[in-house]
């Protein structure tokens, strides 16, 4: 099997799990270890992408530009990437991140809305960036729709398109169908980004590789939104066992996960009721902390909010609907706040 390119997104997806509190010192320490270990790409930005510091998504304590700057300065071999969500970020933030020296821009949209990415792919290519298209909530659409959307991104200049399991709702057959279909239809690379709500983050990532994926994502200790991601150190260990030689130093990753990342966790990332119900209902993972906040404020249950959000087919960026759902559930129960 080919050697996949691994992107570590502890400093982007993991930003949700630390409530957007990364400091420049933490970023420096984590980037240093990932870089030394030989991880080829390190993603750094607000969890919701450039300019994501908002009430809806959660304000960052430190400017993400400061964090990106530190990451670019620290990395010797690794490329620094940032996530970009059209509408949350605009061309202005894209240009600023490029000026700070990022090399890769990952442009993320709900997996039916690829046509909003054109202006950003074109600008990113003009600025000399490598580009990745991120089809979020890929579990909601069949492979045929993802292929259409990925082809649009390819036509705008994407160098790779990811199947993104934002809700951790895909099982292995679903990963296989989607990744193989993209591999077949595209002449660019294909990637896979997992979440662990059903306990399948590592398994799904391996299935994606077996289906031809060229790029995969992980986070140290699995630190990411909701149930977290495929732990980078475990991925490397598994790839070693499969005789897929990534050249990444497992010992450095294990130490970094244990000593640098685990202490940052506000609570251990486990597949508890909230995370399982989120994955089961197919709800975007970064909703978790917002759902907990609303559940507490309005005196309703986390699982029932998740279930209703799933029924309403919410997409990334719809944290405001959590409040709407919580208010309605509270009203139904006769709870006044």
């Amino acid at each position, binding site marked *: 099997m080919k050697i996949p390119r691994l992107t570590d997104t502890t400093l982007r997806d993991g930003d949700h799990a630390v409530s957007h509190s990364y400091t420049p010192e933490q970023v420096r320490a984590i980037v240093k270890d990932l870089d030394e270990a030989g991880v080829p790409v390190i993603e750094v930005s607000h969890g919701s992408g450039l300019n994501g*510091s*908002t*009430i*809806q998504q*959660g*304000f960052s304590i430190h400017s993400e530009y400061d964090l990106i700057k530190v990451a670019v300065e620290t990395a010797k071999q690794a490329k620094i990437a940032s996530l970009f969500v*059209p*509408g*949350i970020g*605009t*061309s202005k933030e894209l240009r600023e991140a490029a000026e700070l020296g990022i090399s890769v821009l990952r442009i993320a949209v*709900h997996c*039916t*809305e690829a*046509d*909003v990415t*054109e*202006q950003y792919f074109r600008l990113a290519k003009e600025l000399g960036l490598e580009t990745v298209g991120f089809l979020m909530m890929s579990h909601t659409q069949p492979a045929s729709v993802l292929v259409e959307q990925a082809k649009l991104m390819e036509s705008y200049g994407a160098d790779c398109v990811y199947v993104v399991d934002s809700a951790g709702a895909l099982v292995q057959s679903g990963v296989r169908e989607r990744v193989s279909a993209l591999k077949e239809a595209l002449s660019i690379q294909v990637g896979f980004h997992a979440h662990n709500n059903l306990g399948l983050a590592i398994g799904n990532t391996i299935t994606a590789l077996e289906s031809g994926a060229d790029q995969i994502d992980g986070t140290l200790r699995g630190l990411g939104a909701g149930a977290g991601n495929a732990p980078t150190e475990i991925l490397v260990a598994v790839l070693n066992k499969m005789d897929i030689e990534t050249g990444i130093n497992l010992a450095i990753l294990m130490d970094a996960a244990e000593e640098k990342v685990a202490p940052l966790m506000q609570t251990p990332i486990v597949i508890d009721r909230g995370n399982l119900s989120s994955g089961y209902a197919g709800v975007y993972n970064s909703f978790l902390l917002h759902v907990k906040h609303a559940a507490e*404020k309005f005196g309703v249950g986390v699982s029932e909010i998740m279930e209703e959000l799933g029924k*309403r*087919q*919410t*997409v990334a*960026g*719809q944290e*405001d*609907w959590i*409040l*709407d759902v919580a*208010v*309605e559930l509270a*009203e139904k129960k006769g709870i006044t*706040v």
Partner: protein
Amino acid sequence: MTKVKAAILGSGNIGTDLMYKILKNDGNMELALVSGIDPNSEGLKRAKEKGIAVSHHGIDAILEDPEIKIVFDATSAKAHKLNAQALRDQGKLAVDMTPAAVGPFVVPTVNLHDHLEAMNVNLISCGGQATAPLVYAVNRVVPVHYAEVIATAASLSIGPGTRQNVDEFVRTTANAVQQIGGAKIARAIPVFNPAQPPINMTNSVYAVIKEAFDEAAVIESVQSIAAEISSYVPGYRLKGTPFVDYRETPWGRLPTVVIMNEVIGAGDLFPTYAGNLDIMTASAYRVGDVYAAHFLGVKEVTQ
């Protein structure tokens, strides 16, 4: 009763929906012409069916008729920038429904009467029409330090113009939340949701307040402006009662007024879920009608 002659420039969906609104309301305008550039367009066909004069000579046909005093521009920002001067030269009021923003932003419930002598007014964006007045309603009771608005619409209701230029929507809407709403700092974020069946347009406003304030007075102010908006956008309503939530912000832990809103369209041309399009045409109608009344010297406007 004497009416003011109005024309619609652009025979696409927005222009056609507006046509139905002018025809179904017995207001102060008479629809004299619908002018497009495609003789075979569905919009011109529909106008003909309704007995309205049509042309496919675009702006030229409108400029030929000196009696037309109000022109609704439902073309594109690029086209409007080219048309604006000619309309002004001929003393025609332009109600600009494109993102061109040649003239001042107007929201009927907030500042329409400040611009009655303007010859070109701009309707901002769907998100701006829906949320700027809500921010204004808070700000007239207590200063809003930061406002963030999330405008969510069904994917099917978002046309290629918006899709190709999300930056423009973001910039225009945030500017309106500052200029019209009065927020010191503003953000606007669009969300397109492809759910089936399609969702109605929904908007959320977060207004961060830095000082002590009378919560009941804020809620009452918001409810009253929502009722005013619903007088010209019948499907506009608040979802639940606005409430205060405490949030961690860059300015400390502060009370944040949370307002949720839904806009269901009237179903004139667009499906009812497309409240985002309906609020543009309904607001344009309202603006045109108020101007027409002003031209006629009518003091009170009734609908």
